[in-house]
């Protein structure tokens, strides 16, 4: 009989919604919530021996959380780790993907379940991900797919798209026989001949983000200011990249009413930074934000700002930064944000 550990967030173990999103990693024996139905579908051959859980903000926003989750999983000595289904939930999807990736890196078998548009998909690190619907009302079919995939994996088989496996085949570089210009002429002739499908690059899917509801009373809310304009302390202590950023950083605004020229610098490599450096408020409007705070138009200004460089940044990294920023801001109590872009 194979041993399975199931990973769920705070909501699906019944601990609460956003109010419990900061709860730390925890483990309990046996299946919980959707795990009970999954256990039924798996039958007597396999057993969910433990359910490990964590709040979404903690799992997606605190760097050490994933390691702690995997340590709890390892205590239960599983043959397979199952995470989700996370549907389209960003923080939960990221956590499910990262836990599956970290479990795989630790030598465990793992599978995650989420919607193909979930930003976590890019973070699964080679662990298989099977499709689920968009929301928890589609839990039934999601668990059917997941249970079938689990049985197949435990039988030592490889998942295919027919099993609900999602994710594009990796794009690999190669040398073509002819130049891109010559191939472009062929492609345009095919296009003129009526072929609308011919392309070397598949059309990407993009997230359609549903905006959060407007804040009803900003004078009681904490506002954060964020930027992709790469504004950092003059000596760039966190070594933020000028292009192809792989990270974001945070710097304190506590006790500051303005950003003094010369103490701050934009390291962005995508535009002339002369005017940004002459007045850093052009990138990060701390002066205006403090003014609004004094006037009572906003409750408080969040006491740190988050920053990255949006220049040649991959969509995958940008999505990850977005999910991490959302988790971090929720964690800190900020309920509104202004993100400046260059």
């Amino acid at each position, binding site marked *: 009989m194979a041993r399975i550990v199931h990973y769920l967030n705070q909501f699906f173990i019944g601990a609460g919604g956003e109010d419990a999103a900061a709860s730390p990693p925890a483990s309990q024996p046996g299946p919980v919530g959707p795990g009970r139905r999954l256990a039924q579908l798996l039958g007597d051959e396999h057993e969910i021996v433990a359910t490990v859980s964590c709040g979404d903000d903690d799992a997606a926003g605190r760097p050490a959380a994933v390691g702690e989750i995997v340590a709890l999983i390892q205590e239960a000595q599983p043959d397979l780790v199952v995470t989700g289904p996370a549907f389209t939930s960003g923080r939960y999807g990221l956590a499910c993907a990262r836990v599956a990736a970290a479990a795989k890196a630790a030598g465990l078998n793992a599978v995650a379940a989420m919607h193909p548009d979930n930003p976590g998909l*890019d973070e699964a690190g080679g662990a298989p991900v099977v499709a689920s619907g968009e929301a928890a009302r589609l839990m039934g079919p999601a668990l059917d797919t997941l249970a079938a995939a689990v049985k197949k994996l435990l039988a030592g088989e*490889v998942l*295919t798209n027919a099993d609900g496996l999602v*994710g*594009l*085949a*990796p*794009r*690999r*570089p*190669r*040398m*073509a*026989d*002819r*130049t*891109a*210009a*010559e*191939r*472009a*002429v062929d*492609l*345009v*002739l*095919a*296009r*003129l001949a009526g072929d*609308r*499908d*011919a*392309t*070397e*690059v*598949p*059309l*990407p*899917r*993009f997230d359609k983000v549903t905006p959060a509801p407007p804040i009803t009373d900003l004078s009681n809310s904490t506002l954060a200011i964020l930027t992709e304009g790469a504004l950092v302390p003059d000596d760039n202590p966190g070594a933020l990249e*000028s*292009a*192809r950023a792989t990270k974001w950083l945070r710097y304190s605004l506590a006790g500051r009413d303005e950003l003094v020229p010369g103490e701050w610098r934009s390291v962005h*490599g*995508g*535009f*002339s*930074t002369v005017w940004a450096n002459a007045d850093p408020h052009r990138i990060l409007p701390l002066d205006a934000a403090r003014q609004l705070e004094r006037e009572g138009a906003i409750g408080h200004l969040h006491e740190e700002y988050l920053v990255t460089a949006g*220049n*040649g*940044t*991959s*969509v*995958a*990294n940008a999505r990850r930064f977005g999910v991490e920023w959302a988790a971090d801001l929720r964690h800190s109590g900020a309920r509104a944000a202004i993100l400046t872009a260059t």
Partner: protein
Amino acid sequence: MLKRSIHRVQAVGFGDAMTWSGGELTVDREEARRLLAAPCLASVDVTWASPGDSVRIVKVLDVVEPRSKGPGGGGVFPGWLDGPPVDGPTHVLRGAAVVVAGYLPRAQEAVIDMTGPAAELSPFGSTHNLVIEFTPAPDADWAEVDDVLRRGALALAARLAEAALDAEPDETETVPDPGAVDGLPRIGTITNLQTQGVFKDVFVRGESFNGQEPALIDPAEIDDGAVVSGQYGHPSLRNPTWVHQNHPIASALRARHGRDVAFAGVVLAPEPVSASEKARISAAAAQLCADAGFEAVILTKEGGGNADADIALKMDALEDLGIATVGLFAEMAGPDGTGPPIVVAPERATAMVSTGNYDTRLSLPEMERALGGNELALLKVPATSAMELPTAVILASLGCLGGGRLTCAPAPVA
């Protein structure tokens, strides 16, 4: 109709005079220094780097192909050189290049390797490169240093080719003018130029193209150096002057002109900064193509994800006018190729050519010599060290104008 006299460069060296003989280009180093000298430069020198040499050129700014139509640079690089106009063939030293390399503020670190895996990816890994290195004078104005280097590189490129004006060419190329051919589809091209101010600018006939409107240009003018790069952004995704001089899309269309396509012409278009200007310029460029009778358009970009918007908006605007489009895109799919490849994709157009993945990692060997600087700015390591770099850093490796063979395809399913 443009005629080109092609002189194939087999060997290079230094000597007492600028000479071209038997496939060997000899450079008078003193004369080169004099051509490049300016009050804002404390020193300037030239060095050869040839294919197969254990040399890494870092901090590359621009690359120019030596071309001349007559003494003093007449007829080439209009707006920059003031020789008398010449009506004759363009002499081309094919296989040679003048490379400017050295620190300028805000220029992104750009690398050419003369051997190893990166040499195969850049068009300049297989040219004999006369590398200009410089030290600015104390308190020199950087914009002036940039201007002086550009004028100097163009003058030097014209001077090198002048040595071949009286020589018998290895071959003569006759290049067709754009025009209609009965029964063949009229295919034109839009060349987007990333024009976003000092150090990220492109010049047309000597003037910044920043703030200009889309315009038709005679491609023969581009051959003769009407488009000059001052673009020091994304190294793999910029088009140095050499690439414009050899405009790969124009070449591919000319090669098939009268056979299965009619080469309809070239539209230059700026890549403005704001979203509203991008949309306005895209609509204007599409209308210009329609007015010029283009039935299909191949579009190219210059720059990173921001420039994806310029090409995608134009593709959709053209398709809305019933004009078929193909866009050349570089992918930004992450080091393992699993991320979304395009930052801004067209919504109604669908045909895209891939020129490779910006994020693919390369392991580059240790080199004996470095030119352009002692340190690789990105990694803060000696420029000669063995290092791992993304394709993004290799100059013109993702061939935005379509000159390269690099592409991407899905990995076979295991």
